């Protein structure tokens, strides 16, 4: 306990410890399909319960083979992206034939996130890394404390509760791109319905043998007019409401 107190006190008086996030992004969802990975996230940056920034790009490409999506504190995500872009740049400057691969980016993030957690100063993000290189598809996730694993389909935040059950039921290996996109959009729609900190403005990204592509923001179709939602509930004849 004494050691913990010493560590929390910090090495110097000016040290800041991230204890709670300020501007946050919600779920990121991703699935492997026949030919690569699809990844989707909305463009909202929440300031607590305020929908403050509506054009944050939380799914980005890194190098020629990888997509990285992040939820949680947006400033930490930006920092991670700058670190990864520097990594890609450094490889190119070395000009020794080595490139930033999906696996190397995953390993770098895994190490960095865990190292920060060990200093009690975590990067408050859950990151999903998706990649396609040499005919092999990669999909992995790293959490803010450095927990990392690879899977066929992934989701961060609320998506873990809302999207993963649907993915577990409907995903199968080597899905065609159209089906995989429909599955992701079904999951994203449910997340928009049931996650308070979300908006209906999403970016969809794809990594395939043709390289990374990140779409411009678009909207999903939603249904709010079921009869039983719309018709008046309070009334003596039909029964009360809340």
């Amino acid at each position, binding site marked *: 306990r004494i050691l913990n107190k010493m560590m929390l006190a910090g090495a110097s008086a000016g040290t800041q410890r991230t204890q709670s996030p300020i501007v946050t992004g919600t779920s990121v969802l991703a699935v492997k399909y026949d030919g690569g990975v699809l990844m989707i996230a909305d463009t909202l940056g929440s300031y607590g319960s305020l929908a403050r920034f509506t054009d944050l790009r939380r799914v980005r490409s890194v190098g020629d083979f990888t997509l990285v999506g992040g939820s949680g504190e947006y400033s930490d995500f930006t920092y991670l992206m700058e670190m990864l872009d520097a990594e890609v740049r450094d490889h190119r400057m070395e000009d020794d034939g080595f490139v930033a691969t999906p696996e190397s980016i995953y390993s770098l993030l895994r190490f960095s996130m865990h190292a920060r957690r060990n200093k009690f100063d975590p990067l408050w993000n859950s990151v999903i890394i998706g990649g396609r290189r040499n005919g092999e598809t990669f999909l992995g996730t790293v959490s803010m404390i450095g927990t990392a694993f690879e899977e066929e389909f992934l989701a961060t935040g*609320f998506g873990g*509760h*809302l*999207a*993963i*059950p*649907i993915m*577990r*039921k409907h995903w199968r290996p080597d899905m065609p791109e159209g089906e995989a996109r429909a599955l992701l959009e*079904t*999951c994203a*729609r*449910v997340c928009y*319905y*049931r996650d308070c900190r979300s908006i209906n403005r999403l970016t969809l990204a794809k990594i395939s043998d043709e390289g990374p592509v990140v779409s411009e923001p678009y909207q999903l179709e939603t249904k709010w007019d*079921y*009869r*039983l*939602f719309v018709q008046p*509930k309070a009334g003596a*004849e*039909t*029964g*009360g*409401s*809340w």
Partner: protein
Amino acid sequence: EARMLASARPRGGFDFSLCGRNEVIRQAAAGATGTMPRAMKTGTTLAGAIFNGGIVLGADTRATEGTVVADKNCEKIHYIAPNIYCCGAGTAADTEHTTALIASQLKLLQLNTGAGSRVVTAMTLLKRMLFRYQGHISAALILGGVDTTGAHLYTVWPHGSTSKLPYASMGSGSLAAMSVLESSYKEDMTEEECMELVKEAISAGVFNDLGSGSNVDLTVIRDDQSVTRHRNYTTPNDVGPLRALVQAPSVKTIPRGATQILSQTVTLSDVQVEVEGMERLST
């Protein structure tokens, strides 16, 4: 009328008579852990949906005590009236006793008025009681039924708020169930489609939520107020076949002569035994 329901009606205000007893228990347990004994919770996935012709209610069958499964096949869909059923999540004792109490009150009302029970009546009795207890009764319910005004589905929360909905889910597995309901619900389903939907919603909770598990129960209440209860509608976690694989019948039935007899000695005992008259146990 008023006198008939007096025993069920509270004296007024809040009843704190159990606080003293709670404190005594807390003190007594202080030597061990200093915490109150854990209530048995139902973890739970509950779901309900309205179709063109009635309502389907569904529930899983796992009851948990902390991280241990206390009951692998409990019943969470409770009878309220012949045409009204209620799924319960939260503390098992609270859901059990609250639904039984309201069922009793509804029966008395039905006898007094001669009319069938209405779902909104059950909902109102539940919310008034739960609000009085300020959320200390941990009962989160999905109440559904068909009465003379039609099919109705309500969610009732422990603090006493309610929602009137076409489809609903409650419990720790409610997000998993709701994801299925949100992606697959449509208006004017048939009974079979609705049963399939609710079964899938509960199954999503059973397999994706650790507080829910075992089997799926369904109850169908139709517009003509007929009810079909499908206890253990599906049993996707049956370990019977697995158990059968590891059973070794040869251990249980050892044939005569399997053990070799090396030698045999017979000695008559010289102890005298007298059997006196025995007393019959009263039955």
